[in-house]
């Protein structure tokens, strides 16, 4: 009774072409959004999204510029797998929201992200906040000191107080180099200028 669902023969070529285009587009998307760069730790990666510019700029003007990059704080460092899993998960969400233009005016760090950051503050500053003398008396007392978010007090570390997509309008952040050939780039420039004139 049931027919085997097979495409009619005339579909073959268009389907091949379509999937070719699809694959091409997928690759192009990867290329153009520099998805590959997500694998690294370079802060410039994050400003691939201009949405991350405020965070980049504030980090760049903080004491943490010298010794840290975004991932030192924003990605778990307890083991390699967790690091990449977290990155992939976050990266995909950010990319999706970005492309759908659903980002809120003020981005808030999510719970999982905040927990990762907290662990990272401790990871680097552990010596300062642990008193080995106390540790011998009571290990709990140390953990109770770490329960409270570091940023409850260090409210400006490292992104400062004012946070919104528009927080640093003119800050010089490294813009990704244009992926378009120069001639096309030029055309596009002219066109959009014109558009704006109208």
């Amino acid at each position, binding site marked *: 009774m049931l027919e085997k669902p097979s495409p009619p023969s005339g579909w073959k070529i268009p389907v091949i072409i379509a999937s070719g285009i699809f694959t091409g*587009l997928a690759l*192009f*998307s990867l290329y*153009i*959004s520099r998805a590959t760069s997500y694998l690294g730790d370079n802060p410039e990666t994050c400003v691939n999204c*201009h949405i991350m510019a405020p965070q980049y700029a504030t980090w760049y003007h903080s004491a943490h510029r010298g010794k840290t990059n975004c991932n030192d704080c924003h990605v778990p460092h307890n083991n390699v797998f967790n690091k990449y899993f977290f990155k992939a998960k976050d990266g995909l969400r950010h990319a999706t929201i*970005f*492309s759908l*233009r659903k*980002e*809120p*005016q*003020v981005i*808030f760090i999510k719970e999982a992200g905040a927990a990762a950051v907290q662990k990272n503050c401790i990871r680097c500053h552990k010596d300062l906040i642990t008193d080995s003398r106390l540790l011998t008396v009571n290990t709990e007392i140390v953990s109770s000191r770490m329960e409270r978010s570091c940023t409850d007090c260090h409210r400006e570390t490292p992104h400062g*107080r*004012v*946070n*919104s*997509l*528009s*927080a640093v*309008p003119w800050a010089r952040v490294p*813009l*990704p180099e*244009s992926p*378009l050939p120069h001639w096309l780039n030029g055309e*596009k*420039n002219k066109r*959009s*200028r014109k558009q*704006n*004139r109208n």
Partner: protein
Amino acid sequence: LASSIIERRAEAVFAYTPLLSFSENEPNSRVWGEAFPREYSSFLRTTDTTFRSRYNGSGLIDMLEEYPSMAILWAGYPFSKDYRQGRGHQHAIEDIRNTLRTGAPSGDTPSPLPNTCWTCKSSNVPGLIAAEGAAGFYRGTWEKRGAQVTQPIGCADCHDSRTMNLRITRPALKEAFEAMGRDINSVSHQEMRSLVCAQCHVEYYFNKNITPDVQYLVFPWKNGTTLEEMEKYYDDLGFSDWTHGISRAPMLKAQHPDFEVYLTGTHASRGVSCADCHMPFISEGGQKFTDHHIQSSLNSISRSCQVCHREETSRLVADVYQRQDKILENRKILEDMLVKCHFEAGTAWEKGATEAQMKEILNYIRKAQWRWDFAAAGHGNSFHSPVETGRIIASGISMAAEARLRLSRLLASLGSNNEVLLPDISTKEKAQSAAGLNMKKLNEEKAVFLKTVVPEWDKQAGQK
């Protein structure tokens, strides 16, 4: 997806270079809106009247209905006829036409108020002042410019048409700065983000001695912008807005000292401007721009407060309401005391008190009510600067207390040592009739004015 990414990268690189072909003081915001559609369409949203917070919002709240005592406190002054909590800028023209305060001019009957009243209501004003000078614009009664001033507050009020920079268009603010020995042209950009508002959201009075026959608009800041400094200014001038209808005290009316009270608060001391809270940034279609839907910040918490405060929305709303509740609690006490002051003083006159006996008492009433009004007339005060607003109310209470104590001694000496009985003022209607108003007549005249005169104004304006 890919194209969206390309496009958004472009956004990051390009800014607009708009072409502005309209004149410097173009009163019609729609014209500006063609160049700046995003700002314009957000600006149009100030027509919305649906948002309501605990005490404020974008509707026209009838304050005399909420607080009937106010009709007594303003007895003998137009505010006892009609006073509402303001709404969005787009309604400015409509509301000044509708209010009973402007009366019902028609034929030979002029409005009781001068053209100065238009100053803060319309983007027609910068052009008219440029053409006729400030005094020229203010001269004459209010109905005279009914057909000239028809656009509500708009772009020309705050912007320079060539650069779109913020600019000051109201002479009163420039002059007030000069009086304080400051130059308004040398303020910072961030200050401008509050000063454009300070063109209107300030305490003011009409001075009749600057230009003959003109009620000239002045901000009383010569000694400074605190309550006491402005009070001293008025006292030195011997100025009073009106003589109270019941107590005969020489009264001051405080009008929306939003900017002055804001200056005394935590946010101002941290450099936070009016625009930071009332015109937060917003992104639409990847473009960041200033939200021109000026309104209660409680309707934009995620874009205004949360930029600086990483707190839950409910927590921030609670912060605002807690402050407002605490201030209102004592403001109402002061309100009640002032009602009693006026009636007790009225009784003292009836029993034959002399001018000399009443002089100091009336001065306490003046001072106490000035404090009450200063706190009440700025609808954002309790949040903008709760400690200062609380201070003002407490000192108002102590002055009203002094007035009542002296009145009680005076009344006793005039043979009347009992509590003065108050009329029923539990509703707006009852309070207004206790204040001696004939509301039926006022409303009827106004209705005729709105049906006959106003359409004529609009027709004339349309023909231009």
